[in-house]
Structure formats: C-alpha cells, structure tokens
C-alpha cells in the first residue's frame, strides 16, 4: 500500500495501453501520428488504488475520420474489458477536449492532471498547455462556481478529521481537496506549500488503498467496522491509525481553507477585514487569546504564521489566569461558528495543548456512540457554537460556554467505552481544576464541575424515570439546587444534544426533557433557595463620604489606569437621565464599558465604569460630558444611527427580589451605546435608577437595574411590565 506499489500498477497498465495502441495503429495505419492515449484523474496522477476505475481518453486530431476513431477505440477498449479493468473511457478530438474543459469545470480540474501514455506525444502536450492556459484565463470567473461546489460537497460529505464516518475522497481534507488545491495552484493566482501537501496526499493514498482492500470494493467511507482490518494491513493499532488519518485530513483541510481565503481576498479586495494588529514586541503570553477571539468574532481565519508566532516558546502561563485573559477566552468560546476554524488553527499550532493539556485526551478521538456525528473534540467545540446562540437563556453565559467546551473532557482514553456516567464524574474533577486555572472563582468552578458531572442527568431522567411521579422532579431539584443552575444545565443539555446530531435531539426527546425541566423548575420555585439580591452581593459599595470625591454642584471624573483596562469614577448631583448622559458620552467617545456600578445616596450620584481603554483623558471626557449636559451634543442622533441593535434582547422583571424597588434584568448582545439605550429608555419613562449593576460576560451584557418612581417607591406591576416591554423594544432591531 505504498507509492511504489501505485506507480507499479500504473506502469504495468501504461505498458498494456502502449502495446494495444501500437497494435491498433498497425491495423489502421491512417491513425499513426494522429492518435494518443491520455490518462486523466487518479490514473493521470499515477495514484491508482488496487480497485480504482481507470480514466483514459483516446485523443485524436480533428481530421481523423469518425469510423477510424471508432475502430481504434474498439481495438484498445475491448481487450481491457476482457482483462476485467474497470474502464472509464472517452474518445475526443483535441478541439473537443478543450471545449469540454471550457464548458465543464469538473472536467477542467480533471485535465489539470492529464498524462501522456501512448501515441503522439505532441497532441497531448498541445492540449494540455491549451487547457491550462484556458484554466488560468477563466479562473476568476470560475472561482465562485468552484467554491460553491466545494461548499456543497463539504455539506454532504463532512470533515475527514472530525466526522464520525468521513469519506476519504469527498470529505474536507480528503483526496478531492488535495486535487482541488493542485487545480487552484494551477490558476497561478495563489500558491500552497507543495511539500506538506504531497506528504499528506501520499499518506491518505496509502490508507485509501488499504481501505479498498479491506472492504473488497472501492468504497471510500471510513467506517469503524473496517478500521481493525485496515490497521492490520498497515501493521499498526486501529486507534493510532484513525488519529493519523484524521490529523492528515485536518492539516489538508486547513491548507484548503487558507488557500480559499487568500484567493477570495485577492479577487475581492473589499472583503479584507482589518484585524487588530499584532504587537510582535509584546511579551504577554496571553496575546493569542484576544487575537483568536477577534478572528472568531469576525469570522476570519487566524493565519498559521500568526499562530506559529504566538506558539513560539515563551514564558509559561501564570496560574490562575488574569481577568483580561479569561474575559477574552470567554469571548472566543462564545464567538459562534467562527470559533471552529480558529480553534483548529490554535490546536494545530500547539496553543490549545499549552493552555489546555487535558485536550489531548479527546483530540480527534472518535466517539463510541452512534448518535454522534463528530469526534469528541469537535463535538465539544460545536457545543460551544450551539451555546453561543443561547447566551440570553442563562444568567452566566461564561460558565455555559466553558462547560460546553469541557462537558466531555472526561472521555479520554482512561474511561473510554466505560459506563456513560464515568466520563461525567472524571470530567467534573478535570473541569473544576481547569476552571480554577483559567481564573474563575470557587463558586464558578464548582458550578462548571456541577454542569459537567450532571450533563446527562436531565436526558437520562427524562427518558428513564416516571415523570408522572412527583418524586422524580423532587429528586432532580434536590440534585440541582437552584433555578440558575437548572437554567444552565437545561441549556447545556440542549446544546450538547443538538451538536451531537439530529437523532440526539428529536422532538420526542426534547418534549421529555422540557417537561422534566418545567416540573423541576416548579419544585425549585416553591422550595428552592431565593436568589440573593444583587444589591446585597457586596464588592461595589460607593464611598461612604461622597463629598470627598465629588460634590453637589459639579461632576468630578477620576480615572485609574490599568494594564488591561481602566476604571472611571464619576460623582455629582443626581437627576433622572444622568446615567444615560454618562453612558452616551462614553459611547460617543468610543470607550467600551465592561462593567459598571451606579448608586445614589443623599442626592449625590456615584458611578464606577470599568473601561476597555487602558488610559482615559478625563479632561476631554469632561468637556464632552458638559456638551451633552448643556444639549450642545445630540446623543440620540449620533448613537442611534451609528450602532442600531443587531439582535433581540431579553428583559425580565425579577418579581419578589426587592420590596422597595422594581428590579429589571436585561440580557443583550454587548455593543456600543447599549447602556445609553437602557438608561435613556428608563429616563424617558420617568424611572429613577436607584442602583445599576452592569457586567459583560463574553459577548453578552447583563444588567440588573433597581428602579423606583419619582417618590422612591417600587413601580406597580403593570408599570414594571410596560417598562420592561419598552426596554425590549429599544434594545431589539427596529
């Protein structure tokens, strides 16, 4: 099953074809010098497997009479059929060859690898150079077609590296992709690293040959049943062979992705997206995290050269991670579909192994369960992608995406194939350690471990226990503990099932799980612990003596610079609409807000703003604020047009949280001017903000607002509902 064996097969067939054409020309002398046999496709590339079809074209000059062509063809094809060769044949004049390639890009791609076998060599040379010239000339026009067909093939055939049952030929990173790369390089619009490409292709061909022999037919489906036989033919164990194949597929797939990306940028310069410039003098070992998050959020590839630079030997990562790195990691995990290629690049460059060594246990590892469509590592990443669509459903989206990434981390070799619950228990311990290493606090790490340990609890109970028995919901409620955890667990379960495959989240199963969750939620609402009011959580109390930092007559701005952000403190006389003006001033100045706390005491408003910018010019900011306060700057015109809401927000009235204020919770995609919109809507409704608690978790903003009427009382229920509806309207696309 080696390149030498393939070459020998082709050489032997070449000889047979040469002798057959020579005999035909002896019988029909007018064909001499006017015919040639051309190998195309896999035979053209000299990579025939033991059971491959043989693609041969009888090429002739346009003036050769049809009856002579037909006779030559019969004299060549029939003996081959008698030999049992599986022949895919065609008879074409040199002009036809060129027009077929011009009309059909698939034929053109096949002709990139034409090879002269027998007969008049100059015919083949001239056709080949004409077809290649046409290919280069029409490449820009054909690229969209080619790319659409490539995308359609990948949709159908999946990914050689990650699909549960990939196709060695058609899947991403498979043999057809290697051929496509050659065709793309032949356009002269782009180049690809030839040596690794040829090495990957040769490795794939070796395995493909063994697969054909083991299957007894030219099937390219990499089915688990055949793996032991193929491994035996290769003299290796099944698992290492599976890993090797997937790794080769992954690297070939990356080359194709990158080549397409370069081609698209070249043919359409306006598609270029300017990413944050990498500061190559920086020594921050976490520099790769924000770069990866930026790339994933924008849906662009992280270039291998950048990844290689990030992966150079550098200082070891501190344990625990600093806050800024953790925030960026959450942003990366919650970025959506852009995470998939970026994570692959980070992993291929060795960066994932550096910050998450536990990943090696699940990397490119096949799942033992037939419902899974992906390997365990890709399934985990896809679960993050699913979670990115459901951030609004949970109070802690950062924990949701981390648990999504780690929920199967226990499926390493040690417990693979063991009882299903084992991987949850082992994974929970690992996830707890990882969460602490990444800088999450004790409560958060414990919650992540809980989610990993119990990610099978809801589906297992929903289909195996009697849901009509109230004891079932009570038992699950006792295990879960509170509503926030239930919300997280239910969302994780759905994301896990949806990413596993269509059979894992059928309407039947979803109905069972939803029913159980509803009943457990009802139990927890009756008997579970009441959430601690955010106002009482501590850690944000305003200074007791406000007069020392601000006054009743003017606004004082004080900034504290940090290495990864800054903190701005604002004090001054309170009035309805002040927070809207402050948030709008910051948004208009281009200052992103990560977190904010605001409160009022004795008529003095105090607010603290954690900003992305490392330095803040408070003098200029004060001037901007003054212009907003005296209505010289119209924030509504500037901010409404500049950044309209892109996705719908979720707004809830948290009933029963406070007796003296109405508590509103806002969950929305983080974007410029979001806070200004929130506070302006409250001000327009005449609501006074007693305190505000604003956080950003990954790409989601979470705000809890304690509001009162002008007399300092909680709003009546109908007014609270109206205010929540107004906020939802203001924060959703118009």
């Amino acid at each position, binding site marked *: 099953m080696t390149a030498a064996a393939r070459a020998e097969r082709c050489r032997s067939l070449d000889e047979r074809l040469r002798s057959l054409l020579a005999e035909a020309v002896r019988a029909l002398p007018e064909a001499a010098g006017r015919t040639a046999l051309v190998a195309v496709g896999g035979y053209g590339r000299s990579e025939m497997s033991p059971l491959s079809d043989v693609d041969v074209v009888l090429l002739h000059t346009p003036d050769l009479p049809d009856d002579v062509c037909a006779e030559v063809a019969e004299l060549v094809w029939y003996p081959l059929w008698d030999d049992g060769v599986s022949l895919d044949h065609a008879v074409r004049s040199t002009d036809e060859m060129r027009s077929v390639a011009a009309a059909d890009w698939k034929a053109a791609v096949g002709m990139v690898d034409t090879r002269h076998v027998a007969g008049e060599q100059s015919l083949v040379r001239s056709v080949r150079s004409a077809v290649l010239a046409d290919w280069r000339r029409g490449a820009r026009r054909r690229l969209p077609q080619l790319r659409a067909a490539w995308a359609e093939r990948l949709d159908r055939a999946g990914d050689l590296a990650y699909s549960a049952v990939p196709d060695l030929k058609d899947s991403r990173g498979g043999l057809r992709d290697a051929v496509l790369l050659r065709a793309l390089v032949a356009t002269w619009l782009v180049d690809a690293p030839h040596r690794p490409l040829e090495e990957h292709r040769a490795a794939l061909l070796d395995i493909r040959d063994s697969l054909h022999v083991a299957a007894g037919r030219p099937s390219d489906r990499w089915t688990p049943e055949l793996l032991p036989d193929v491994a035996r033919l290769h003299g290796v164990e099944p698992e290492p062979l599976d890993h090797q194949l997937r790794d080769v597929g992954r690297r070939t797939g990356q080359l194709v992705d990158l080549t397409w990306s370069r081609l698209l940028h070249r043919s359409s310069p306006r598609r270029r997206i300017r990413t944050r410039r990498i500061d190559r003098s920086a020594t921050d070992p976490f520099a790769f995290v924000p770069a990866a998050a930026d790339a994933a959020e924008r849906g662009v590839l992280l270039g291998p050269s950048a990844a290689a630079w990030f992966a150079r030997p550098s200082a070891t990562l501190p344990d625990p991670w600093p806050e800024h790195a953790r925030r960026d990691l959450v942003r990366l995990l919650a970025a959506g579909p852009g995470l998939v290629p970026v994570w692959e690049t980070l992993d291929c460059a060795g960066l994932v192994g550096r910050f998450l060594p536990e990943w090696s246990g699940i990397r490119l590892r096949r799942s033992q369960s037939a419902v899974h469509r992906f390997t365990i590592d890709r399934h985990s990443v896809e679960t993050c992608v699913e979670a990115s669509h459901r951030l609004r459903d949970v109070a802690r989206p950062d924990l949701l995406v981390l648990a999504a990434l780690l929920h199967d981390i226990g499926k390493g070799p040690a417990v693979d194939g063991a009882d299903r619950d084992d991987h949850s228990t082992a994974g929970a311990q690992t996830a707890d350690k990882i969460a602490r290493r990444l800088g999450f606090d004790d409560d958060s790490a414990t919650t992540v471990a809980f989610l990993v340990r119990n990610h099978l609890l809801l589906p297992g109970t929903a*289909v*195996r*226990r*009697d*849901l*009509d028995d109230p004891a079932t919901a009570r038992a699950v409620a006792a295990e879960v503990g509170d509503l926030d955890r239930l919300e997280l667990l239910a969302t994780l379960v759905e994301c896990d099932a949806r990413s596993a495959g269509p059979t894992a989240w*059928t*309407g*039947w*199963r979803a*109905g*069972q799980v*939803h*029913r159980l*969750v*509803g009943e457990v939620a009802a139990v927890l609402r009756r008997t579970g612990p009441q959430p601690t009011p955010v106002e009482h959580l501590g850690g944000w109390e305003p200074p007791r003596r406000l007069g020392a930092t601000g006054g009743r007559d003017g606004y004082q701005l004080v900034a504290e610079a940090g290495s990864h952000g800054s903190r701005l403190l604002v004090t001054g006389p309170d009035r309805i609409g002040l927070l809207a003006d402050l948030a709008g001033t910051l948004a208009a100045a281009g200052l992103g807000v990560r977190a904010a706390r605001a409160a009022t005491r004795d008529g003095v408003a105090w607010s603290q703003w954690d900003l992305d910018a490392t330095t803040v010019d408070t003098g200029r900011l004060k001037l901007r604020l003054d212009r907003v306060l005296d209505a010289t700057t119209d924030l509504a015109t500037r901010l409404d047009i500049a950044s309209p809401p892109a996705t719908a927000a979720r707004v809830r009235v948290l009933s029963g949280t406070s007796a003296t204020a109405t508590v509103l919770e806002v969950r929305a995609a983080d974007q410029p001017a979001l806070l200004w919109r929130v506070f302006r809507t409250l001000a327009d409704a005449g609501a006074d903000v007693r305190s505000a608690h604003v956080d950003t978790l990954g790409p989601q903003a979470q705000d809890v607002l304690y509001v009162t009427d002008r007399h300092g009382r909680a709003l009546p229920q109908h007014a609270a509902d109206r205010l929540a509806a107004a906020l939802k309207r203001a924060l959703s696309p118009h």
Partner: protein
Amino acid sequence: MKLVTAVVKPHKWDDVRDALETFGVAGMTVTEASGYGRQKGHTEVYRGAEYDVTLVPKIRVEIVVDDDDVADVVGIVAKAAQTGKIGDGKVWVQPVDSVLRIRTGEQGAAAL
C-alpha cells in the same frame, strides 16, 4: 412466527428489556414513538410558552418470536410495563409469513 408489538411508557423500557433478555429474546427493534389512547394527552408549559402535547411519548418495541413463545413474551412485557395507571400502553400480536437473515440467508425460525 408472530410479530409482537408493544407500546410502553418510556421509563418502563429498561424493565421490559431486562425481562425480555432474561427470558432469552435475542433481538428487538425499538423506536421512540408518540401517541395517545384513552388518556387523550395533555398540555405542557415550557419557558412561558404553552405547547400542545396531545401526543404522549412512548417506546415502541417490536419482536418477532416463535409461535410457542408468544404467550410468554406478551406476558413478560405486560408484567414488566405495568404500573396500574392510565397510559401503561398496549401489546398486540400479528402473524409473520417469513423471516430472512440478510447476512447469512437463513430463513424462518433459524433467522430469529
């Protein structure tokens, strides 16, 4: 030969399978099914949205057995699936003309 089809509550499926395996039933086809009988289904509320669940989730089990085993298999399924409450399910039996094991070509009882 007969085809025994049982529709049981999902949470009783493990009990039914254990009982059948203990008896010696070698294989069966299991489907996640939905339907309703005399209980006519019910309505559920999930995350504030009410949705109609007139179809109650069930597990459908199909087993082809030799004529001599039919009564035992029906009895085993009924006993294992019974809770005594509404919605326990049904078991029914149909005649089977022939069975062929695709891999070996065996036919009739040998293919069971």
